[in-house]
């Protein structure tokens, strides 16, 4: 069953990808990309990667698509026909693809439990992490403890992206002229949005704090919460949104998240452990791990929330500016 | 003779290199006061000369002198040691620096040149590097200072700052740096990798381990890598560099730079390949004939040049190849001749350049065809010119006689009759392109159409310049009659002797 679903979904993806190549309408391209992302997230669920699916759905289909639409709004919808030859790219792609196919020939068979990948490092995570870390969700254990440094890096990447967008696009001025923006004429939308947003944010917080037990965690939570505020901004307009969540507040929040995360690591210095060693945070190592993970997940959450929302603000501010002009 | 005997002998080497540098600094500091500046220059030059004299003295007394600065690369150091060939070159260079400085004072002022301070500074830097070249103990040190010499003389070549000067400078730098990096450095690296050492060792450093082909290749690379020796076809820089002010041409292109080139070739031949082994190298003959061809061809080119300095430049190219020929003949006597030729050609050619410069300053004439009847207006200068000419040609009673003599003897020793023929033809060519100048100056009556020489113009030959010309021309004659100290020094060089040993 799993294989069948996998095959069907992959087939859908392949068709979508092919269609994207030939479409000239960029809006359609972005829509199809959103679809692609959604379907790939479905594949992730099918292949047991629920946390990944969670993230891909929120990021790929959510944030990325929204940002792309924002860009399209500013840059125009139609790709111009270009007459330069596509032969060279095709050649490059064929060679690369051939190399990859060549590489697959010695690959371990798909899904086989004896594959090297399932034999060496992973078994320890599966067998020991519930004891060592005390969390049911192994992905969270690995993410936030065994490979916490990767995750710190990931937070830094998000922060870097926020810095990048901030420097490129700037931030909207809070409480600017409340020009008529947003979907003002959509009464239904406004009402439904007002109902949905609080629920969404609470759901995000739920995801934030239950990442230890089920799929989710700081990153997903941050994105969902940001998505909720983005929804507000879309419906009620950017000025109101910046009034609710101020850009400067976001800046502080983004920085704070990274600091919380790195600070946890530094704290373990002072308690005699290595960087990010949570065992020393409490007398019982398992409790220490739990504390550490909760704190850093919180750090990730607020950085991601702030960064994603900040990035959206940046794009929206540009759109708003051109709108005024 | 050695006023520095109180000092540690090895320290003298450092001093010879450092004193000009200090001089350079002082020149910069005193740059605003021309008189003071030039006093400093001369004082430095004289100090340096006395230092070299001290080293010479020590050399004759068989005192070994060596010093190491830093270890530059693994197993390679910037190190100096004194050996007779270097002393010889150092003596020539430091002595002629004094003279050139004196001359330059006259010339630069007479010509109202710009940037005189820069000029003197670079001058001092160049001499410093030349001293380092003289005493370098290994190829790496030599190479380093060889390159520095190129760089420090580049501003001198382009001193005028005109488009011509820049073009000349570009050729100068391009060929010298190009050949040295592409060939010389390559040869040095090849030597290092194959022989495992770069130290100058009497008798050479190559053993049977290295393949013949490799050594043959290295010889070619060395000969062409040392671009300052102006072996064809890499001689173009020398005429190009003649755009420089005359004192520069005189010192650097009759003495320091070009002589550093042939000196390096001699040194490489004697201390890296070993004169004894040279005859077994496949490419020796090839390079010998190329050098011989350079001798003849550049003489021919010289004849076609009307510009005095250009003609002198090609003459230099030709004369340098004499030395290369001497070095490659693989005979001890020829090598001695080559070493001696460094000295005799230096004094001879510098005299000629001085004269050319004096003529320039005094009459603003550059072309030979315009110099008709000049002898009467500038008798002293032209007499000196005649002396220089004779010395270059190699006619007694001038210094050049001896070196040519030994070179011919060396060719005979090595049983290379063709070289004897080449040398003879070249002497004839020398006569053809050099002798007409003094002859025209003295014997041909001035053309009526030409502007008559006015007394007032010729008088302007600056006194310092005249003094310098006097000294060098005297030296030309003096070295004919009293070459013994030089020859003694040359005989100290390992494997080199002025004794005719016949075919061995």
């Amino acid at each position, binding site marked *: 069953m799993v294989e069948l679903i996998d095959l069907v979904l992959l087939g859908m993806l392949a068709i979508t990808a092919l269609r994207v190549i030939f479409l000239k309408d960029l809006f359609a391209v972005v829509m199809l990309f959103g679809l692609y992302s959604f379907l790939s997230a479905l594949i992730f669920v099918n292949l047991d990667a629920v946390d990944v699916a969670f993230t891909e759905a929120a990021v790929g289909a959510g944030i990325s698509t929204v940002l792309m639409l924002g860009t399209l709004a500013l840059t125009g919808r139609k790709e111009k026909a270009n007459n330069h030859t596509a032969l060279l790219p095709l050649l490059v792609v064929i060679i690369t693809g051939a190399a990859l196919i060549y590489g697959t020939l010695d690959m371990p068979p798909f899904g086989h439990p004896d594959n090297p990948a399932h034999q060496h490092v992973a078994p320890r995570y599966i067998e020991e992490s519930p004891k060592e870390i005390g969390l049911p969700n192994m992905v969270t254990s690995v993410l936030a403890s065994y490979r916490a440094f990767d995750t710190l890096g990931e937070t830094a990447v998000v922060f870097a992206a926020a810095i990048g967008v901030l420097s490129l696009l700037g931030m909207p001025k809070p409480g600017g002229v409340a020009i008529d923006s947003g979907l003002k004429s959509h*009464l*239904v939308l*406004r*009402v*439904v949005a*007002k*109902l949905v*947003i*609080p*629920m969404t*944010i*609470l*759901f995000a*917080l*739920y995801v*934030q*704090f*239950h990442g230890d*037990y089920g799929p989710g965690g700081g990153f997903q939570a941050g994105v969902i919460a940001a998505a909720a505020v983005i929804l*507000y901004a879309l419906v*009620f307009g950017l000025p*109101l949104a910046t*009034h*609710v969540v101020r850009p400067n507040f976001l800046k502080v929040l983004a920085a704070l998240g990274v600091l919380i995360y790195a600070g946890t690591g530094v704290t373990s210095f002072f308690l005699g452990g290595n960087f990010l060693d949570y065992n020393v945070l409490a007398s019982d190592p398992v409790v220490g791990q739990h504390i550490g993970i909760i704190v850093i997940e919180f750090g990730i959450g607020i950085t991601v929330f702030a960064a994603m929302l900040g990035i959206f603000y940046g794009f929206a501010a540009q759109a708003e500016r051109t709108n005024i002009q | 003779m050695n006023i520095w005997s109180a000092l540690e002998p090895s320290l003298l080497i450092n001093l010879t290199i450092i004193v000009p540098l200090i001089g350079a600094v002082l020149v910069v500091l005193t740059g605003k006061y021309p008189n003071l500046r030039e006093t400093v220059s001369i004082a430095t030059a004289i100090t340096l000369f006395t230092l070299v004299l001290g080293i010479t003295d020590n050399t004759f007394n068989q005192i070994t002198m060596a010093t190491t600065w830093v270890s530059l690369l693994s197993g390679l150091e910037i190190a100096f040691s004194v050996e007779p060939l270097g002393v010889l070159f150092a003596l020539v260079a430091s002595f002629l620096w004094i003279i050139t400085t004196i001359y330059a004072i006259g010339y630069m002022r007479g010509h109202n040149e710009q940037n005189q301070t820069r000029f003197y500074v670079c001058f001092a830097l160049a001499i410093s590097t030349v001293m380092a070249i003289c005493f370098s103990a290994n190829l790496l040190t030599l190479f380093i200072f060889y390159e520095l010499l190129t760089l420090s003389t580049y501003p001198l070549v382009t001193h005028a700052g005109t488009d011509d000067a820049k073009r000349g400078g570009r050729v100068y730098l391009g060929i010298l740096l190009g050949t040295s990096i592409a060939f010389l450095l390559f040869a040095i690296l090849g030597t290092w990798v194959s022989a495992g050492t770069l130290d100058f060792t009497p008798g050479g450093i190559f053993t049977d381990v290295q393949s013949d082909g490799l050594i043959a290749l290295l010889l070619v690379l060395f000969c062409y890598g040392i671009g300052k020796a102006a072996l064809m076809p890499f001689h173009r820089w020398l005429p190009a560099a003649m755009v420089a002010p005359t004192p520069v041409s005189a010192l650097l292109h009759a003495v320091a730079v070009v002589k550093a080139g042939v000196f390096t070739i001699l040194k490489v031949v004697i201390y890296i390949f070993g004169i004894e082994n040279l005859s077994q190298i496949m490419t020796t003959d090839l390079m010998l004939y190329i050098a011989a061809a350079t001798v003849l061809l550049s003489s021919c080119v010289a004849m076609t040049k009307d510009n005095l300095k250009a003609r002198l430049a090609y003459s230099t190219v030709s004369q340098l190849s004499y030395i290369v020929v001497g070095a490659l003949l693989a005979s001890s006597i020829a090598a001695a001749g080559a070493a001696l030729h460094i000295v005799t050609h230096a004094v001879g050619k510098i005299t000629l350049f001085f004269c050319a410069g004096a003529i320039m300053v005094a009459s603003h004439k550059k072309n030979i065809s315009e110099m008709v009847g000049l002898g009467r207006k500038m008798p002293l200068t032209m007499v000196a010119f005649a002396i220089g000419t004779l010395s270059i040609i190699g006619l007694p009673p001038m210094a050049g006689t001896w070196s040519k003599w030994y070179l011919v003897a060396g060719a005979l020793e090595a049983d290379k009759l063709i070289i004897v023929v080449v040398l003879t033809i070249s002497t004839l060519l020398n006569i053809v392109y050099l002798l007409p100048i003094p002859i025209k100056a003295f014997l041909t009556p001035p053309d009526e159409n030409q502007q008559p020489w006015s007394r007032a113009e010729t008088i302007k030959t600056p006194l310092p310049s005249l003094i310098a010309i006097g000294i060098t021309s005297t030296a030309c004659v003096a070295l004919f009659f009293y070459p013994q100290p030089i020859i003694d020094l040359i005989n100290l060089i390992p494997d080199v002797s002025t004794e005719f040993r016949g075919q061995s």
Partner: protein
Amino acid sequence: MYSKSLMDRKTIIYLTTWTLILAIFWLLLSGYFKPLLLGFGLVSVALVVLLIWRMDKTDKEPQQLSFSLRFFRYIVWLIGQVVLSSLEVTKLVWGSSKKLSPATAKLPVTDIPEHSRVLYANSITMTPGTLSVDIDDDYVTVHALDEKSIKSLQQGEMASKIAKATGEKN
């Protein structure tokens, strides 16, 4: 409808309603009754309520929540309607497409409380066969697959039920 003083009684009731709903929502989502997670829940609910308060302060469009038995009764009725009309549409789908006679009409909404109009519009949309295309102060524009549906809407059963279900409280 929204007084200037932010913390008047109405607001407090309103925020309390929200707090209750959110708290229930949290508990049902979480399913863990450990002190730690309950604590997080508390913080989370507080945060969200704060945000609601800020949003309302900004956009001045607070959403009253009213849940009553009537409301649920309406929902059940609605589901029944949905099933019925679905069958209609299914017939249309599987049948010949020529039977389609789409129509548009404007229905007055003046007799429905303002805040319930959205519910009305959504109910229309939810029932297959009818689709609210636009809504403004007085009218809701409806697009229907066939004119019968519009007629049944015009009879106003749905409208009156909504008015009943939500109207009382306001």
